[in-house]
Every structure is written in structure tokens, then in C-alpha cells.
């Protein structure tokens, strides 16, 4: 068992206590001389250099219209879309994904995701990204924040970037599992907060203005440190410590050539930018690749930020939600272009082996088309796609019944997907994190295993 702990001497499985050997809590603070990844590897928590991209398909894609087609089901079940062949003979997917169909050898489909919590968006967001439902006041960390905590930053880059913005209101008024939870806010993701498809896209205030020389920046920093000494007692409050860490991160980012280049989408060829799709999602995928090339370890991309008054995967068929046709007109092509280009691009650059991609929604949709012509929430079964980072391509895990309503073979839980991600990233599933009151919390519940069919 490995236990990595921010606040106490670290206990290892060999029974030794190595005081001050690792204070991983400081890892996220950029610019600090890090207890290097090397040491963490030695401690056994992180074994390989695989990075990760979570594509969150906010709204909940319909399994029946995407990756679990049932052409033989009655019309009110199978829906308007037809299956098409892929470059893997045994796999068919929806016609809304003609480009993805050419890359089925690179990804695998899990068709039997399901959960038993309330069928609202927020619960699925929590479980898919943290592996757990939030209960009894416990906010669990997003997998990217766990990686941030365990692996720290690299090359002056934030360990975990979330783009373009966090998931906002999806109706349930609950947390969406996109921050660091009990690990503390210093492990929250760096949030882009800008639309990368805007023509003049840049990270706001990343660079000092012209009139701000390096000498002045240094002077400001020193003076600020001096003035802050008068309120040293505030260091006892987490919020005050967080502010200091943010200043440190900001200084590191400002002076980082990696950051400057990483966030500069304009240096990408126009053809490639267009192949990814000139929309928030496509450009975020491209940006994720640039950032991962330059030291970011985990990128989370929210395809949408809400399900209200926006065209999303949430096809109830009536306002303020989306119609089923949007899968063909807008939402499907967005994923089709963005993800297929990402797969191809990473593959050509030799990065696919070291980059895990998980494309997932928070639940599936009702097998039977509703009176409004849409489909409602259905957490009983849905499909998730995984690729790269050691995931075997061209496979299908699990089987659903004739109408894609329930798993009939190999049901898979959200926690297993998260466990598989950790496994691919080389993180020991028995690693424990410091929870509230320093209670050790395992990164996944005891007994949860990776999906061995895929790794």
C-alpha cells in the first residue's frame, strides 16, 4: 500500500516513517523546487509518464444514437440514425460519426456504464470524474486533481487544465466533481476561462504588459513578500495560503516559455485548426494536445457548460433542452471532428501511447423516444469511449439488451472507468489520499478494479 500525504510524515508499506521526505501538498505550487517525480516513482505511487484528456460530453449522449446502435429495434427505440461500418469489422457506430468510424482501431467502447444514483446530470458528473457519489459532506477530487496532487507540476505548467470553463448549472444544484474537493483548492485545475475558438484567443493577462520590466516584477514580488510578513498569522488559514500559492503559480506561468507557446493556438496550421473544428470543443482538443506536449499532465474539456438554452447532448426534445436532430446537425459533427482529429494528430506525433483519452457523458437516455421526439435521462446504461495511454483499440466491453436499456453482460460502473484511467496513468490503485481530518481515503473504493479487457 502506498500512502501519499500532505501533512504528515509519510508512512510507506515498509513501515518506515520518512520525515519530510515528501510533502506532496507543495507539489502543485509551481516554481517550488519539487520533490521530483522521480521520488514519487520511487515511492511507488506513479509508475509511468502517461497523461490524460477527459472529454466530458455534458448533457448525456444517447447510447442508441451514438455507440450502441440497435437497428433491429422498433422505430421508436432505434431512433432516426443508422449504424455505419468502422475500420473494425465487428464494430458499428452511428452514422453521425463518419470520421470516427475510420479510427475504431484506436479506441474501444464500453457499452454498459450504469449508475444507481438519482438520474440527474450532477450525480453522473461526480461519479464519472471522481469515481464516487458525494455523500455525507465528502467532496471527492476529480481524477485530474488527484494527478495534480500526486505528480505535481512539470516544466512550469499547471498539472491540470480545465477548459474552456467549468460545468455550471445543470439543474441539480450539486457540485460537478471538477475540483480538488478534500485535497484542497490548491489542487483545483487551472481554468482557461476563455473561448479558444475566438479569433483573438489568449489566456487573459498571461503576459506582463510592456511597461512592466523584469526588474519591476521582481521588485513588486519582494515588496509584497515583505508587506505580507506583518500578517504572518494568516498563514494558518487555508484561503491565505491559497492566495500565496496562486501568486507563485502566476509568476511561474508568466515567465514560462512553455505556457506562452502552449496557449498560443495561432501557431497551429489553419488546416489543422479547421480539422479539429472551429468551435470551443475542437479548439480545446487542439489546445489540450499543445499543453500536454509542454508539461501539462491532465486536461479536462467540457464540451458544454450547461444544458439549458444551448444545443447539447441533452435531447429531451423540448425547450429549453435540445432536439434529437442536433446530433446530426451540430453536436455529433463537433465530437466527430474534434475527437477523430485528436486521435489522428496524437497518433502521428507518437503521443497516443502516452495519452489516455476518455470521452464520456454522465448517463444514457431512455430507449423509447418520448412524445416530444427526444429521449430523457437514463442512468441504467450508456456508452463510454476510451483510447490511447495503453488502452487496446478496436474492442467493445459489455453488451446491452435488445433495446439498449440494461446491461446484459459485463456491467461497468463509473468507478471502474476512473480506476482504469489511474491504472493507465501508472497510479497504484491502493494509493491513499489525505481526507478530512487526515483520514486516509483510497483513490478508488477498495475492490474497484481497472477494466482488464482494455489494458
Amino acid at each position: 500500500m502506498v500512502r501519499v500525504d500532505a501533512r504528515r510524515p509519510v508512512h510507506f508499506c515498509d513501515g518506515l516513517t520518512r520525515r519530510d521526505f515528501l510533502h506532496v501538498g507543495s507539489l502543485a505550487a509551481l516554481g517550488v523546487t519539487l520533490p521530483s517525480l522521480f521520488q514519487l516513482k520511487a515511492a511507488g505511487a506513479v509508475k509511468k509518464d502517461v497523461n490524460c484528456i477527459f472529454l466530458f460530453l455534458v448533457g448525456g449522449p444517447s447510447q442508441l444514437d451514438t455507440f450502441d446502435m440497435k437497428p433491429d429495434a422498433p422505430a421508436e427505440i432505434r431512433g432516426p440514425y443508422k449504424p455505419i461500418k468502422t475500420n473494425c469489422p465487428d464494430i458499428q457506430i452511428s452514422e453521425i460519426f463518419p470520421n470516427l468510424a475510420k479510427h475504431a482501431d484506436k479506441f474501444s467502447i464500453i457499452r454498459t456504464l450504469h449508475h444507481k444514483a438519482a438520474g440527474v446530470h450532477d450525480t453522473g458528473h461526480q461519479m464519472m470524474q471522481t469515481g464516487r457519489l458525494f455523500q455525507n459532506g465528502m467532496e471527492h477530487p476529480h481524477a485530474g486533481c488527484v494527478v495534480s496532487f500526486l505528480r505535481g507540476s512539470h516544466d512550469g505548467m499547471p498539472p491540470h487544465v480545465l477548459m474552456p470553463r467549468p460545468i455550471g448549472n445543470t439543474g441539480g444544484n450539486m457540485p460537478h466533481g471538477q475540483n480538488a474537493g478534500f485535497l484542497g483548492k490548491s489542487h483545483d485545475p487551472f481554468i482557461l476561462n476563455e473561448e479558444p475558438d475566438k479569433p483573438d484567443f489568449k489566456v487573459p493577462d498571461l503576459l506582463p504588459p510592456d511597461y512592466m520590466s523584469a526588474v519591476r516584477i521582481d521588485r513588486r514580488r519582494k515588496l509584497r513578500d515583505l508587506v505580507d510578513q506583518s500578517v504572518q498569522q494568516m498563514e494558518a488559514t487555508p484561503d491565505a495560503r491559497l492566495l500565496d500559492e496562486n501568486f507563485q503559480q502566476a509568476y511561474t506561468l508568466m515567465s514560462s516559455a512553455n505556457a506562452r507557446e502552449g496557449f498560443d493556438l495561432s501557431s497551429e496550421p489553419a488546416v489543422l485548426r479547421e480539422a479539429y473544428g472551429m468551435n470551443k470543443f475542437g479548439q480545446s482538443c487542439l489546445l489540450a494536445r499543445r499543453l500536454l506536449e509542454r508539461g501539462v499532465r491532465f486536461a479536462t474539456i467540457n464540451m458544454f457548460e450547461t444544458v439549458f438554452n444551448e444545443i447539447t447532448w441533452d435531447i429531451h426534445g423540448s425547450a429549453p433542452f435540445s432536439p434529437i436532430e442536433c446530433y446530426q446537425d451540430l453536436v455529433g459533427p463537433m465530437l466527430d471532428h474534434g475527437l477523430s482529429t485528436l486521435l489522428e494528430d496524437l497518433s502521428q506525433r507518437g503521443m497516443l501511447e502516452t495519452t489516455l483519452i476518455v470521452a464520456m457523458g454522465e448517463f444514457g437516455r431512455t430507449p423509447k423516444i418520448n412524445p416530444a421526439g427526444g429521449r430523457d435521462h437514463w442512468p441504467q446504461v450508456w456508452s463510454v469511449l476510451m483510447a490511447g495511454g495503453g488502452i487496446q483499440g478496436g474492442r467493445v466491453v459489455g453488451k446491452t439488451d435488445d433495446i439498449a436499456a440494461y446491461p446484459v453482460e459485463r456491467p461497468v460502473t463509473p468507478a471502474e472507468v476512473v480506476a482504469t484511467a489511474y491504472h493507465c496513468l501508472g497510479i497504484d490503485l491502493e494509493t491513499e489520499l489525505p481526507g478530512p481530518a487526515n483520514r486516509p481515503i483510497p483513490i478508488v473504493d477498495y475492490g474497484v478494479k481497472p477494466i482488464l479487457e482494455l489494458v
Partner: protein
Amino acid sequence: MRGNFVSVRLPLLLFGFVAVCPHAEVVILPADVVLNHQGAQHQLLVEQRTGANWEGDLTVRAQFQSSDPQIASVDEHGTLWANGNGTATITATVEGQSATATVEVKGIDAPYHASFRNDIEPLLFRMGCSTGACHGAAAGKNGFKLSLRGFDIEWDHKVLTRQANGRRVSLVEPEESLMLLKPTMQVPHEGGKRFEKDSETYRILLDWIQNGAPAAPEEERRLKAIRVLPESVTLGAGAEQQILVQAHYTDGTYSDATRRTKFGTTDESVAVVDEGGKVAVKGPGAVSVTAWYSGRVATARLTVPRPQNVAPDVYRTAKSNNYIDELVLRQLRRLQIAPAGEATDREFIRRAYLDAIGILPTLEETTAFLADSAPAKRAKLIDQLLERPEYTDYWAYKWSDLLLLSSKNIPRREELSAFYRYIRESVAQNKPWDQFVREILTATGSTLENGAANYFVMHKETVDLTETTSQAFLGMSITCARCHNHPLEKWTQDDYFGMANLFARVKLKNGRRGNDTEVLVDDFGDVIHPRLGKPVPPRPLDGETMEPNAPEDRREHLARWLTAPENPYFTRAVVNRVWRNFMGRGLVEPEDDLRLTNPALNEELMQALCDDLVEHQYDLKHLIRRIMNSATYQRSSRPADTAAPDDKHYSQYLVRRLSAEVLLDAYSQVTGVPTEFAGYPAGFRALQLPDSQIGSYFLSAFGRPARIQTCSCERTDDSNVAQTLHVANGDTLNGKLRHEKSFLAQFAEGDSNDDAVVETLFVRAVARPPSPAETQAVVTVLTAIPREGDTWKADRRQALEDLAWAVLTGKEFIFNH
């Protein structure tokens, strides 16, 4: 005969060692038990008590004895059994100390059979069968649908006994009933094994079937209340405590319902609770254990003191100005947290200004306050602040957040202004909160003449009105109940649509002025309940049903119920919001999540504040004055115990970041350069903006709420890297510092004494003189600039900007403390 029920032994877990103190007595809980029928049983707890304080569970170490086992026997776990009519005494002995309980057994000759209402339905919920994830889902599961959490008892009885060709319940071969075979996995069950064949649950279900699976008779006793034992207990590190739950019925009887109750805790870092109601302490703090049985919630309060002992004198001598302090100190004492000392006058004036009116005190105001020697000068200052025009700005802004004022929601500027003006005027006249809410909910007429009527312009749909009204004024989200019964609360879909129907007759039409809207009330129209396909009678959640065709505006009925002092949520909601504004942490967190299962950490204090506000006719200034005058509010932000500061129980003033608007205004105030807002006159402060849509990167980055959905979660007071980058590289703060009219201009000439420059700058920004080290460091920077050449003035100005920047981005400035 032992009857049909057999107890499942409470698991013996590792017990933290509770030593029986010499001063403590040993007590049995409950001290009197009445067992009403054959086979009745009840768990007993042996507790240690000193005075009125319950101090831990000694049950596993106790030895039990019955004076007459023919009447009632007791096993080694403390489980009591009815054997014959009469009265017996139970004695429990722990380490030489003993306690007794009286048990009366009656009705032993009448066999007891499980009741569908009082035994079976609670079990179906407890086992998870009737939850939303299983057969309680709207679509049921695999063709078997129960009502969610058993709210429709007749339906449930029918589907169990009549559907599926009578296979679910087989009266001929009871043990072959699917409702026994499936959950025990004797035949495949997708939901897995829910209980064992030799379990108590199995036997209760079997007993019910063997007895003919009767429906619930109308005249049967009903659940009246549930009670937890002990209601409050103080536990040490590592201790465990069994919680008992009694179900009390309308006929005066009660039974031990512990094993059919669902348990939860509000804070797992303090204690966790298992399925059987056994609590295990994890760390110091206060926590509520919620017991949920058959739609009722009761809470047991657990206190786990810190291990160190604080001298009792600390609490006796701590400053106490009013009941808030008494109740806070009482809890701190229970938890053994030492209160912080008193804030200095300098600290107090800054925080009082920021919290009550959202601006910094000027240098002159600070100086005058410090020089004032009147003993009651803090109370005097508070009174003055509440009469300032900035008080109106600040609180009108706060209630505009709550009411979602934004040009996105009210596109016509005149209408938005009218609503904002209405809010401002209400704050300015200190309109009682209940009157304010009543006026909004019952507003009619032109939206320009009656600004409050814009509430109905913003929220046109009845579902939107229903949800927003509950969230804003009751601090309660009932959105879940729109589609199904609320999973965490008692609200059903029927409650929801009864409430929605109160808004059914609000109509809008174009106003006479051409740029306004007329809000009026029709005398027909109903909201259709989607599942029933017809309206349910108008009824405010758990209030009284209204005659659908009564001539009265239905909203009047709603407003009366909502703002009634008896409404448990209305007063709590506003008290919690105001309290959080000053104390940095709500008595309930999140601020607007007042679920029964989310009680206040200091329930007595919450109640006292609510009583106070009701007694003073919802006068918010009175509440604010009460809070600000408390010694609790006036404590230092430096914790007494720096090693383990407390952030939950108000032992110290909580350090927190200034909010987006306050920080921006403070930058304008200190630098002397106002922020420009497009479309608003020069000098307008952020806290005076009526519309959240006014573009400002600074305000967005620092967490200004978008005012899209009524939720305290919209505002964030967390720091993040984007904010830091903005103050470092953005043009907001840098622009003000570089501005030609910046306060720094007065020093740039260089003829002033450097020491004086530094002092003025510090005093202006953080209301204190610089320390010698600070003066020296800055003077060194300034004197290092060669006083020659063309650039020295510019260089000096830059150095001053850098100094001001350092002060204005330091924690002392950015935080309220």
C-alpha cells in the same frame, strides 16, 4: 415464546475505551419501556452521564439482569424481550456501578403481525427497494414499480399482492413469494442480495405474507413522530455510540425502529455512522447524526471535544455582550475550543465598514474612531454605519443578487431600474423582511410603478416561480420534486404542483406606457400536474389547501404561509444569510441549503436569532446590530490555538477575501481613481450597479455572480490564478496606479521626505503605519534611484507604484480580517 421476530445482534465493533468517571452516573436509556405485544423488543443503551451531559456508550461493557424474566428478558447486548404481562426492573452493571430501567409489558396475549404501513413499507425503503435507483424509479425496474419511498401505500400493496399473477406474494406458499426469493437471491435479482434468509427482515416479510398479506387498515395507528436516543452526547476520540430510534404512533404506543432507519452524518471528518446506527468518532468537532425513518427525520447531536483541556476560566472571563456570545461560548466550551481575544479598534473599524457597508473607512474616520475614548464607541459606530447611504448600496446589491437583477432577465432598462429602485427604497426604509417578501410575491400593476412586479417578468413560468421562490426565501431547493418526489426531503411531486398552482393565475400584458408590463391576476387557470394530467388544488408545500375557486389572489395565500413566523424555513433562511455576511460562515452551509437533514451546527443559536428577529418584526437592522455588537463578531482573527484553528464554531473572526465588488471599489477608493462602467456615470461604484451584465473582467474573475439561477453558489470568494494574473498583469489595478490622477501623483515630485511618503501610503491603504522594517526597505528602494537625468522622476513614480501594488495585493489588503 419469543414471537416472530428475532433480533439481529448489533455488531460488536472495537470500542473506544470510556472510563466511568467517579463523578458520573450510569443510566439506562430509555429508563422506561412499554412493550405492547407478543414478541415486542426494544434495545437498551447504558450511558454515562454527568449532570445533564450524556458522555458515552457503555452498553457493551454492561451486564444486564431482569428482575423477572417471565415478564421481560434481556440478553447480553441489552436487547429487551416481552415475555408476559406485568412490570419488571432491568439492572445494568458496569464496573460496580449500576442503573435500572422499568419495563411494562402488556397485550402479550394479542399476537402481533407485521403491518403493511408501519413495518413493510419502512423496510422496503430501508432495503433500498422503493428508492429512486430501484423500483421507486418513475419507470419502475423490470416491470415492477413501487411508489418512491412508499408515498402511495395503496399502490404498493396492489402491485405486490395483485400484479405478476400473484407471484410476488404467494399466500399459498409464502416462502415461494418473489418478494422473498428475489432479494435473497434464491432466484436471480438484478438488484443483488438485499437481505439474508435468516434475517429479521425476512421474518417480518414472511410473517406479513403468512398472515394473508393484509393491506393497511384505515383505522390503524399512524406514525406521529420519531425520536432519537440519546439526543445529544459528548464523546471522546475513538468512541462509539449506538443511536436508538423510536417510532411513536398516534395511539400513544411506540416501538424500536432503529433497524429500519437510514442514518447519515453531516461531517464525516468528525464521525461516521453505519447502517445499524452505530456512530464511530473520527475527530474533534460537532456533528449531527440524521435518522430517517418513513419520511421523518430526527437528529442526534454529537460533540467531540478537542483533547486538550481549556481552563474553565477562559470561558467565564471571555467577553460576552449578548445571547449570541453565551450560546457560542457554550458550544466552544463543549468542544474545548478556546475563543480568540478581542479585535483591536483598528481591526474592528475596518471589518465593520467592509461587512456592513462594503467600503473601507477613510483615514479621517479611522483616526477619529481610534481617538474616541467613549466606552460604547463600537456600538455607536455600528449605529452610524447602519444609517449611511452606503448601507443601502451594499444591502440593495445583496438582495439584487438574491433576486437575480440583470438585464439578461429584465431586458428593458426602465423595468430593471424600477425593480432595483424598489429594492433600494425597501432597504433604505428598513422595510421588515416579511413585508418585503410579501410585497414581491403579491405584486400587481405596472412594472414601472410597482418595481416588485418585475419578479413576474423575470419568472414567467410557474415552475420557475415555484423553484425560485423556495430557493430565495426558504433557502430550499425543491427542483427535484418537479419530476419525482424529492430524494432528500419530504416534498412530493404533488406538493410541488400544489405550490406551482398558486402562481397559475398570474398574467402579464403590455403596459399602458409602452415600455412597461402589467402584472395582473386572472380568476381562472390551473397548472396541470404532469403525472396526473390534471391540476392538484393550490397548496403551499405543507401548508393548507386552498379552495381552487376562492376569489382571493392565490399568491396572498402563499405569502401568508411563507412569511408566517411558524414557517420553519422563512426566518432561518434570512437569518442564515445575514449571519454569514458577518461571520463568514453560515450556521447552515451551504447558505441556502436548509434541509432537515442539514441542521445548523449550533441549533440553539439559530433558534435564538430567529426568535429575536420574529420578536422584532423582521427588522434586519436590529438583527445586524445584534450580530455586530456581539463579542463573537468582535473577536480577533488570530486564533487562540494557532496550531489547530477552528473555522466552524466562531471562536475567531474568519479571515476571508474581499468580494469582487468590494475589492474593486476599495482599489478605486485607495488609489483615488474610480472604475469606469459603460453606461454609468463617472464615480459609480461596483456596489451601486443594478445589473450584473455590466462588463468587467475584474468582477467576473473575482467571482461576481452571474445572477442566472438563485443560488449562493453563484458567487465565489475563492482565490485563483486568473485573479492573480489579472492584478499582476491586467489593466485594472495597474491602470489605477499608473493613472495621472492616482494618489501617487502627490509623491512623485520627490521633494517630500521618503519616510513620510511611505507612512502616508501605508496608512491610506491598510490604515496603519509601516513597521520600521517596511519603512527601511522602501526607503532603500526609493533612495537607490539616482536623482539625476531625465528618467528619475519616472523611475521614482514606478517604484511608488510597485510599493503601492505590493501593499494592495498583500493579504492584509485583499482579506477582511
